[in-house]
């Protein structure tokens, strides 16, 4: 083998670099995100009214698309009322509707966004709710 020594050293360095993150974390897994929906605003509601605009599974998967659509409808078309699939009506507003119930941005939004390493720029402009330490 030509240059065998160099190749073997190279392979060792490569394997070391690739496995470093796994070895460094000691095989532990990061805790699964657990967004909390126990804000005082939600707990105040009656048990059967503790529902989001749309079903939980839909909100989990599609809330980003929904927020985009809400923004276009409100800003561009001037329609502010959203009729949900269950017939209930909501004012389309991140700051004034979503965050009025989900007043725990850190434990609700950031929990998953940090886990999946997405950085939405919502809070560059929109004012986040004042967090109450519980």
């Amino acid at each position, binding site marked *: 083998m030509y240059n065998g020594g160099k190749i073997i050293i190279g392979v060792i360095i490569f394997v070391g670099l690739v496995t470093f993150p796994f070895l460094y974390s000691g095989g532990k897994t990061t805790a699964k995100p657990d967004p909390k929906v126990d804000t005082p605003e939600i707990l105040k509601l009656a048990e059967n009214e503790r529902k989001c605009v749309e079903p939980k599974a839909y909100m989990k998967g599609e809330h980003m698309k929904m927020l985009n659509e809400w923004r276009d409808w409100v800003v*561009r078309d*001037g329609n502010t009322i959203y009729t949900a699939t269950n017939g209930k009506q909501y004012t389309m507003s991140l700051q004034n509707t979503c965050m009025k119930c989900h007043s725990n941005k850190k434990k609700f939004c950031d929990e998953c966004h940090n886990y999946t390493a997405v950085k939405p720029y919502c809070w560059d402009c929109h004012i986040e709710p004042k967090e109450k330490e519980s």
Partner: protein
Amino acid sequence: MSMNRREFLKIAGISTILGLGGVSAVHGLRNRVEASQISPAPKALKAKRWAMVVDMSKFKKEEDYQRCIDACHQVHNVPNITDNPKHEIKWLWKETYEHAFPGTEDEYLSEEIKHLPFLVLCNHCDNPSCVRVCPTKATFKRKSDGIVMMDMHRCIGCRFCMAACPYGARSFNYKDPIPFINEAKKNLEFPTRTKGVVEKCTLCYERLATGLQPACVEASKGALIFGDIEDPNSGVRKVLGARYSFRRRPELGTRPSVYYII
């Protein structure tokens, strides 16, 4: 399989009709489904085209101007940047006659008019030059009511609109505006802006949607008149029909919706 010309034309004609009919039926259905999902608020104020009349005879003291400006800037979280005049953010502000109405200043204009500060804002033009130049359609004229709006999410900060606007109605956020907003007076119901976007008066679209008049109109005690310019019975049309009015730089053909009476 053989087919003569007559048969071919028959089949082609029928399939065209079916195809077109099918597309329009699907479209109609889809529109109905979407339309049932969203609607304007029942309380919302509606107009074909919003307009404002500024009655300068009612602006006598410094306080009369400041009341309107403060109401606007507070409700929209407009930062108060004073260290560099180029960085200033203005939605509603005072302008001298020669700056507000260039080309009309006569040599022997009365001293009173010459030194009267005029209250100026975005003119919400019927033919807005800012909208024409925006490469991302971040600024656009709303079809429903003629408001020249900003979608901050789309603004890339190219400032073409600032160059195009002949009224200087647009301000650019050269730095993060949030530290310059008075924390105690912050309106938690309205967003702020970020560094690198252009902002201007939005004619209080968010207040109109809840059935309220614009903040400046509410604070002006009758000095600002607001209404639908295309409704002959509206307040603005009555004032415009009764008194001589003028607009800023009408020769440019932008057709502003803000009128001035003295």
